[in-house]
């Protein structure tokens, strides 16, 4: 996958920063590691049947395992970002891969349910958190004009791998029993480590901050350093807060179809097989949407933020149309709307991450990604139970889909309040405000990108694509 230098050089005339070259190798690394994080997480359902049978616990207790894992991944994202800013991205990702594998290996020896929460949930979740955001930020830093396409290609791995992993995991569990299967999964997760090793080590720009030996003991200085690693200053900037709010609103509604589409289809009178097929079709168009939207966005005809608003509004509309289409009883209508929804939700995923550098500036992308993951995790936790609650009250899924769609539209409207929304070109990224001399505290790659004159620096939006 190593691209020759000629390709990046031919574009050097208009490229503002790195775009290709080693970036393609990193993209492959991101493809593999993202599939081993989210693709794996999505396919853990195969194990739940085994766990319920073996541990004789309720399905709800078992489902906490994956909830803990996802929550840990999102919660530790800022930690991963901070560690990358403070230390070496390569080491962080390799450590994350090792931890994720360790969690699964230890889980294979579990003798009670709590062991699974701690190993598969906490340790692996911590590992995943240390892998995902840094990997995405690194890829974004290595592409400029084709950033969104790269992200789209990278995130398509999630859908593709969950197609492949489901039968694979089933086979592993049948052949080796769940303990052996978890052990082998731990080994597979260990493949994240070479992916991390591919990240070229850069000189750490924040290292000078640690030179002041007397500041080590000073509490205030330590706090100030930590807050700069975590990019906490972002929380005080209106564009970032607005954007994060918008993404959080998306997340409330975004997952509802994944949770409830099958149940809703069954309720509308379709068979189990038909309902499952609708989900698969939506998943397939999701993958397509990610790649196509990435390619289209990079053509540069429109600002990324405008495209994001359009896709999100469309996705919201289609979610609201879902219950309407099945009311007529037509399977074809349900299929079409679901596929359109899948396409839009995939399309917005690529963009949502790509918009972040435009808002916070490329050098703060790492920290911005981490914080965004953390804040939007609350939305995911809210969305599922809320729609379930609405279904319990009203007796069908119409209300919950309507509410989910409206959250997406609300998020879209929030985006409109971003500064310079209606201008034709992107505004320049805000400078980081800090007491320390900022010229020394930049990632080398990111500093290079910043130093090149361009107003179309794609500010990658952080969006968790799952």
């Amino acid at each position, binding site marked *: 996958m190593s691209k020759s230098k000629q390709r990046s050089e031919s574009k050097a005339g208009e490229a503002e920063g790195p775009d290709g070259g080693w970036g393609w190798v990193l993209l492959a690394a991101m493809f593999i590691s993202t599939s081993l994080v989210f693709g794996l997480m999505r396919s853990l359902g195969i194990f739940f049947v085994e766990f319920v049978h073996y541990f004789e616990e309720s399905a709800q207790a078992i489902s906490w395992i994956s909830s803990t894992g996802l929550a840990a991944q999102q919660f530790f994202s800022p930690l991963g970002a901070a560690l990358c800013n403070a*230390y070496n991205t390569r080491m962080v990702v390799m450590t994350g891969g090792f931890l994720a594998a360790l969690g699964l290996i230890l889980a294979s020896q579990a003798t009670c349910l709590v062991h699974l929460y701690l190993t598969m949930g906490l340790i692996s979740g911590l590992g995943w958190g240390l892998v995902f955001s840094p990997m995405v930020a690194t890829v974004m830093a290595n592409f400029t004009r084709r950033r969104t396409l790269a992200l789209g290609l990278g995130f398509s791995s999630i859908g593709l791998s969950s197609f492949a992993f489901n039968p694979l995991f089933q086979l592993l569990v049948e052949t*080796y029993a769940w*303990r*052996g299967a978890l*052990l*082998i999964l731990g080994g597979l997760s260990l493949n994240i480590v*070479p992916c991390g090793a591919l990240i*070229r080590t850069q000189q750490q720009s924040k290292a000078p901050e640690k030179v002041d030996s007397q500041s080590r003991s000073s509490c205030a200085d330590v706090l100030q350093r930590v807050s700069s690693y975590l990019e906490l200053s972002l929380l005080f900037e209106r564009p970032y807060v607005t954007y994060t709010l918008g993404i959080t609103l998306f997340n409330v509604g975004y997952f509802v179809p994944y949770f409830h589409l099958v149940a809703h289809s069954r309720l509308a009178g379709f068979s189990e097989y038909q309902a499952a097929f609708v989900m698969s079709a939506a998943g397939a168009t999701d993958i397509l949407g990610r790649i196509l939207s990435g390619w289209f966005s990079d053509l540069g005809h429109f600002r990324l933020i405008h495209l994001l608003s359009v896709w999100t509004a469309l996705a919201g509309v289609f979610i609201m149309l879902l219950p309407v289409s099945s009311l007529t009883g037509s399977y074809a209508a349900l299929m079409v709307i679901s596929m359109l929804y899948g396409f839009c939700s995939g399309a917005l995923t690529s963009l949502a991450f790509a918009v972040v550098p435009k808002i916070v500036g490329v050098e703060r992308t790492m920290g911005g990604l981490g914080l965004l993951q953390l804040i939007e995790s609350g939305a995911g936790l809210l969305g599922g139970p809320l729609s379930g609650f609405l279904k319990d009250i009203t007796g069908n899924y119409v209300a919950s889909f309507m509410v989910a769609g409206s959250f997406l539209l609300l998020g879209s409207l929030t985006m409109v309040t971003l500064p310079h929304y209606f201008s034709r070109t992107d505004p320049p990224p805000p400078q980081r405000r800090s007491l320390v001399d900022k010229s020394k505290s930049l990632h080398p790659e990111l500093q290079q990108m910043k130093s090149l004159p361009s107003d179309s620096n794609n500010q990658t939006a952080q969006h968790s694509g799952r």
Partner: protein
Amino acid sequence: MKLLWAVSALLLSCWRTNASTAPNIITVPSVVSNETSAALTCNLTDNNLQIKGSHWTHNGKIIEGTESTDSAAWILYSLDKITPQTSGLYECVFLTDPEVKKTIEVKTLPHVSAYKHSEHGNENDKGAMSCVSHGYPLPTDWIWFKVEDDDSVPQLISNGTSDRFEIKSTPNKTTLTINELSIEKDIGYYRCSGTNELGTHSDKIHLRVRSRLAALWPFLGIVAEVIILVTIIFIYEKRRKPDEVNDGSAPLKSNSTSNHKDKNVRQRNSN
């Protein structure tokens, strides 16, 4: 004349006595046992209540299509095929005030099926095999056998056979749990057999015991592959470093700055 009055009074009183007894349903047949098909009939006699309709129920649930508003006192339900699914308790219900109903039992051989026909277990772990039964009446006895390849007589397993075996049985489900599975002793076919008053039915399960190390070999293979990849990547990078600057990185940084930073806590990639 007086005799005629006395006799008619006697008859009248007898008739009124008859009328005040409860309505009676005659079911033909009252029990269906070991048949392939049957026609269930209910005949409502001694009844002076108005019949507003009737229906049949199967195991408590109303059978669709049998609901009628006819005031017939004789109703029929035909069972074309008696299978474990269609066996059970059938009730004919006459919609009088109050309702009158009677039960007909449709009995059949039990149908025993294994939860999974192929079970796996890890060595020294516990392995569980389950069988469920459908049909009416549910088995009263469950027996487990171990079938050896060469033996013609299967071995009987009960709770006392060994302290490793545990059998838990309810009328519709039985589970055999073996603790501390051993590869030599426990691999093979097991038969669960359920018996009710009409007969016996059984099913076979194949138990496979994986050695604990079975998954270890693929795992070690993958770990070896990962170590090799990481080594190759590091070696490749070391060889490239003297030749060219890192791809796409800033020319602003020079080696001198990197050495300067070397003093700090940051970890180099050369370990």
